[in-house]
């Protein structure tokens, strides 16, 4: 999946949770400093991101997400781990 697609899907998730228009969410947006999110909402973003991309991300990693870029990178790393399996099947 293209990075730009991943990024735009995650922006939509963030928008649903924060009521901030996707166009106003910067790529470097920090959940706490820029979006004023509490830990519950950050976890909600992590859960929805995992759900959207059908990933099984352990608790420890989900709760580390602090920025949009973090989230995109995490999704990419999980997707790349999954891809060989997809090709094999």
């Amino acid at each position, binding site marked *: 999946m293209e990075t730009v697609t991943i990024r735009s899907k995650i922006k939509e998730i963030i928008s649903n949770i924060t009521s901030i228009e996707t166009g106003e969410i910067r790529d470097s947006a920090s959940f706490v400093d820029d979006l004023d999110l*509490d*830990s*519950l909402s950050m*976890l909600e973003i992590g*859960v929805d991101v995992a759900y959207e991309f059908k990933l099984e991300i352990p*608790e420890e990693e989900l*709760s580390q997400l602090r920025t949009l870029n973090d989230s995109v990178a995490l999704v990419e790393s999980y997707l790349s781990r999954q891809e060989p399996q997809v090709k094999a099947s």
Partner: protein
Amino acid sequence: MVAQPRIVVTGLGLVTPVATGRRQTWERLLAGADGISPVQSFSTEKFNVHLGAEVHDFAAADHLRNLDPTTLGRASQLAAAAARLALDDARIDPASLDPNRAGVALGTTSGEPLEVERFDDRLVADQLDRVGDEFIRLYPCHMIAAHVAAEVGFAGVNTMIPTACAAGNYAIAHASDALRWDRAEVMLAGGADSFSRITYTGFARLGAIAPELCQPFDRDRKGMIPGEGAAILVLETLERALARNATIYAEVAGYGLTCDAHHMTAAHPEGEGALRAMTAALNESGLHPDAVSYISAHGTGTPTNDRLESKAFRRLFGTRSKRTPTSSIKSMIGHTMGAASAIEAAVCALAVAENRVPPTMNFRQPDPDCDLDCIANEAREMPVEVAMNNAYAFGGNNASVIFRKCHP
């Protein structure tokens, strides 16, 4: 102004993960019992945690004399059994009371969640046609107080207070006021919750469930363990209790109810609401913080709760917080949700009555953030003049109730 009537606890009914009945539960708690085991109510295969504090070997039919237990949700069954046990313990024959002056006030977190879970099972299986009238008959949470009142024939005040994990204390506050305000002469007060997939899923998702042990106030504590149960206290005025020569466990000296108004699931970072609740409860009781002999802490075993509760203790007691014996029975029976503070209220009443306090089990390493005397791993005999029962909940609800030795 005419003096307020004094309110006393004269009966205790308990259904918990370690035992059923007042005497059995109390002895088990003093012995440091372990009520935590692999969850049986539903499969935890897809979870990363697997332990719960379920009530095993409970048959409502052993306790109910009026209602058919098969027509009640599980929380109602637990509560109705606790009500029977409490009235028996108080040596009150409900038939001897004026039903219009006998009431019920109960708390819960989830009401009858098994009923909505059954509904959801059908919804996702596309079998909604199989939902009958039982959903609306059994699910509404006020049916717990309703079933208790119907079981024992109490036709007075009937209040269901679903203020989540502080609900038991809220119900005790409400019931003691109903007596003070002469709206009833006997009240059953307490709380109940059943073991629930929804609750378990939620706390698991928040990463709040401990994988192995519930270790309140321990440096390495990893979380709470969801549980189920019910506790009901018989409350009446001192005058009435004396007149019938009742055994008095303790006096309900005062309470404090506050709201953090801060966050749904996170406590105030300075323990603000918790501190206000404790202060209000002590003020109403006419007591200085130094008078507190024992604290039954909310002490869920999550890193945050125990740290913030300890902070609130330091703010209230100063350096004395290190020396005020404090324990969390959640280390033994898990977090029984709406029943928790009711069970802990019973513990406070028994501690006051018997000068014995239950331990915080699984305590290994002290945490500098929780610099308390947490009655580590062993029950203690000590004079208990005043016991404080704390409970905190989603919604920012805080409730502290003070129990005191009754000196008529």
